[in-house]
C-alpha cells in the first residue's frame, strides 16, 4: 500500500513539476487542440483520397497517444536537467527503472484521455459510427500504443538528457512515426523504404489492430504483442543508453553537462 502511494505521489509530483505544458493554455493548445487538428487533417485527407475518413482518424488518434507518451516521458526526464534537479533525482535511493515507470505513468493516462476525446470529437465531425463493442478493443490498442511508444520516448529522453535542445530527439521520433507509422494509409501501402523503417518502430501494429477493430473485426492480439515487443526493445535500448549517461555523469560529477 505504501509502495503504491509512493508511486502515485511520485507520478503526480513529476507530472506537475516537470511537464512544462501543464498550464491551462499550454495544455489545451498542445494536448487538446493540436492532436484534434492533426486528426481532423488526417480524416480530411483520408476522406478525400480513400473515400472514408475512419482509418485515417483511427491513425490520427493513435498518433495522439504516441505523442503524449513520447513528449511526456522525454520532458519528465530531460527537464530534470533543465531545472537543475538531475543530480538530486539520480542520487535518490529509488531505482532508475522504477523512477522511469513512475514518471511515464501519468503521461500514459493523459494520452489515453486525449485519445478518447479526440476520437469522440473527430467521430462527430466525420459522422463515424463505430460499434459500441469495438470501443474496448480500441482502448486496448491505444493502451498498447502508449506503452510501446513510451519505450521510444525513453530512448528520446536518453538523448535529450545529454543534448542541449530537449525537443530535438522527441521531434525526430514524432516525425518518424508520422511518416512511417502508417497513420494515414496502411503500412503495406507505404513506399518500401518507409515501410522498412516503420517495421522497426512501435505504433504501426497498434494502428493496424485498431483499424481492424474499428472496421468491426476482432482484436488482433498478435499485432498488439508485436508492438509491445518492439516497444520493449526500444525501452531496453533507451534504458541502457540512459544508464550509460548516468554512470558517466556520476564519474565526472557533472550532472548538468551537455
Amino acid at each position, binding site marked *: 500500500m505504501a509502495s503504491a502511494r509512493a508511486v502515485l505521489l511520485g507520478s503526480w509530483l513529476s507530472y506537475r513539476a516537470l511537464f512544462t505544458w501543464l*498550464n491551462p493554455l499550454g495544455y489545451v493548445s498542445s494536448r487538446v*487542440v493540436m492532436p484534434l487538428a492533426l486528426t*481532423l487533417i488526417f480524416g480530411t485527407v483520408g476522406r478525400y*483520397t480513400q473515400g472514408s475518413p475512419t482509418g485515417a482518424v483511427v491513425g490520427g488518434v493513435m498518433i495522439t497517444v504516441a505523442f503524449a507518451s513520447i513528449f511526456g516521458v522525454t520532458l519528465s526526464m530531460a527537464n530534470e536537467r533543465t531545472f537543475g534537479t538531475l543530480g538530486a533525482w539520480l542520487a535518490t535511493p529509488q531505482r532508475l527503472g522504477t523512477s522511469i515507470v513512475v514518471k511515464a505513468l501519468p503521461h500514459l493516462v493523459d494520452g489515453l484521455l486525449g485519445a478518447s476525446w479526440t476520437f469522440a470529437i473527430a467521430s462527430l465531425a466525420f459522422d463515424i459510427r463505430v460499434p459500441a463493442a469495438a470501443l474496448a478493443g480500441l482502448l486496448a490498442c491505444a493502451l498498447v500504443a502508449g506503452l510501446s511508444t513510451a519505450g521510444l520516448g525513453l530512448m528520446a529522453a536518453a538523448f535529450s538528457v545529454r543534448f542541449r535542445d530537449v525537443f530535438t530527439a522527441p521531434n*525526430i521520433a514524432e516525425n518518424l512515426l508520422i511518416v512511417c507509422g502508417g497513420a494515414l494509409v496502411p503500412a503495406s501501402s507505404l513506399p518500401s523504404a518507409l515501410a522498412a523503417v516503420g517495421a522497426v518502430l512501435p505504433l504501426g501494429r497498434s494502428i493496424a489492430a485498431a483499424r481492424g477493430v474499428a472496421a468491426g473485426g476482432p482484436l488482433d492480439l498478435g499485432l498488439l504483442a508485436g508492438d509491445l515487443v518492439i516497444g520493449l526493445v526500444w525501452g531496453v535500448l533507451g534504458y541502457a543508453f540512459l544508464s550509460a549517461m548516468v554512470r558517466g555523469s556520476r564519474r565526472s560529477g557533472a550532472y548538468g553537462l551537455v
Partner: protein
Amino acid sequence: MLCGGTRLQWGLAALSPLAVLGEAIGPIAYGVAFTVGYGAPTPALLAGAAAAGLWAALMIEPAVIVTSERSWGTLQALAATPTPVAWPLIGRLAGSTLVALVVLPVVLAGLLAVFWRSVPDVLADLAQLPLPLLLGTAVVVLLGVFGMSLVLMGALLRSRYSAGMVNGLYGIVVLLGGFFAPLATLPGGFATIGRAIPVSWALEALREPGGAPVLQLVVGAALALLWCLGGVLLLGHAGRVLQRAPQGYVHG
C-alpha cells in the same frame, strides 16, 4: 529600426546546417505523410508542404522574439525610446521570415527525395502551370503567413506567455488553410472559417488552375494585406499599452 531588427534576427538565427535540418524535418514529415495518401506529389501538395514549413517556423518566432526581448530587459528599454515598440519587433520577424525561406528548399528537396520516382511527373506538371500563377501563389502564401505571424506577435506582446501555448496553432492553420486537402472536403463549417486564411485561396488557385485563379489570388493577396495591417495595428496598440503599464515588460 525595421532593418536593424531584421539584421539582428538574421545574426541570431546562426544558420547552421543542423538548425536548418531541424526546422525542415517537421514539414517534410507532414508533407511525406500526406503525399503518401495521395500516392504522388503534385504542385499543390508541394506548395502546401512549403506553406506548412513557413508556418511552422513563423508560428514559433513571435513567441521567441517577445519572450527573448522580455528576458533580456530590452523591451522596456525600447519602449523608453521615441521609436514605436512595434518596428524593431516587426524587423525581427522579417528576419525570421528570411531565415524560414532558407529552409524552404530543404523542405521541398526532402519531400521530392522520398518520392524521387515522381520528380519527372512533378516537373512536367509544374511546367504546365503559368509562371505568374506560381509566383502569385508564392507571394500570397508568404505574405499571408507573415501577416498571421504579425497578428500572433501582437497578441503575445500583451499576454503572459505559457509554455506550449502556441503549439495548437500549427494544426489549426494547416487544417483550416486547406494546406493538404481542398477546403470543400473539410468537415462541418470549417471551410467557411478557412476562407479567412489567405493561404487557402492561393492553394485553391493552384489546385484548379482552370477555374478563376486570378480572382482567387487577388482575394488571397487582399486578405494577406489585411492580416499584415491588422498585425501592425495590434502591435502598435500593444506597444502603446506597454508604455502605460510598466509591469507588462516583465510578464505581459
